[in-house]
């Protein structure tokens, strides 16, 4: 009787025991991107506030966004946003009980990542081509 309570009991398997798969990576990526977007939207609200306040404030905030770091943040934010949106569309497809098969869901996860990179590059490439610079 006492043996069963003192003996090291087997623990239920946790994350580290599973082989990491694309669907797992995109699952946690959906949460991480969602969290980044959650805080990042404040930057756009402040940008609008600066536009509503005065030219000086707008030029200051717009100057920050126009800097190299600012451009990297906006480019990154747009990628994260598109990744989360495509991931969300994947979830909406699953809600209709489609695309849940092992191979299909794996392909959807990979398509989510590749699609988000391609769409982001197309948008900023298009903006660059039309405006002749970012």
């Amino acid at each position, binding site marked *: 009787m006492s043996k069963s309570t003192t003996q090291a009991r087997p623990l239920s398997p946790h994350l580290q025991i599973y082989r990491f798969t694309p669907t797992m990576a995109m699952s946690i990526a959906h*949460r991480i991107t*969602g*969290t980044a*977007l*959650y805080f990042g*939207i*404040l930057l*756009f*609200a*402040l940008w*609008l*506030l600066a*536009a*509503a306040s005065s*030219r000086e404030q*707008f*030029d200051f905030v*717009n100057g920050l*966004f*126009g800097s190299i770091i600012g451009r990297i943040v*906006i480019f990154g934010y*747009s990628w994260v*946003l*598109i990744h989360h*949106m495509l991931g*969300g*569309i994947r*979830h*909406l497809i699953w*809600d209709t009980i489609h695309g849940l098969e092992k191979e299909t869901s794996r392909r959807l996860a990979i398509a989510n990542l590749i699609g988000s990179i391609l769409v982001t590059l197309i*948008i*900023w490439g*298009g*903006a660059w081509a*039309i*405006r002749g*610079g*970012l």
Partner: protein
Amino acid sequence: MADMRTPLNKVRGLGSARGGTEHFWRQRLTAVSNIPLIIFFIGFVAAYSGSSYEEIRAALAQPVSALLMGLAFVSVLYHMRLGMQVIIEDYVHGEGWKIALILLNTFFPVIVGAIALYSLLRIAFGG
């Protein structure tokens, strides 16, 4: 003592999580409304990146832009509040911390929304 309530009675209305399926449904509802609004938002930001003060104010003062931008903020803020609530419930187990973060999770989107809508109205009405 045996629970005399039927399974149907337990899930009717609020259910065991005191929230029913309303949270799930609103997450999906705002996910769908976010899609066209985010496409507009990304297009707007990409099109007007690097524009001058006058150009951006004129663009935001257009009725369609002002309305779509306002709707985008409302839809996205509601959606992100629902999503963050799930993350808090999944990872924060201390009751005090959980309640504090759930409170902040309402205050933050409301503050961001107030800033955005106030700014949009001020630009649209030429303040």
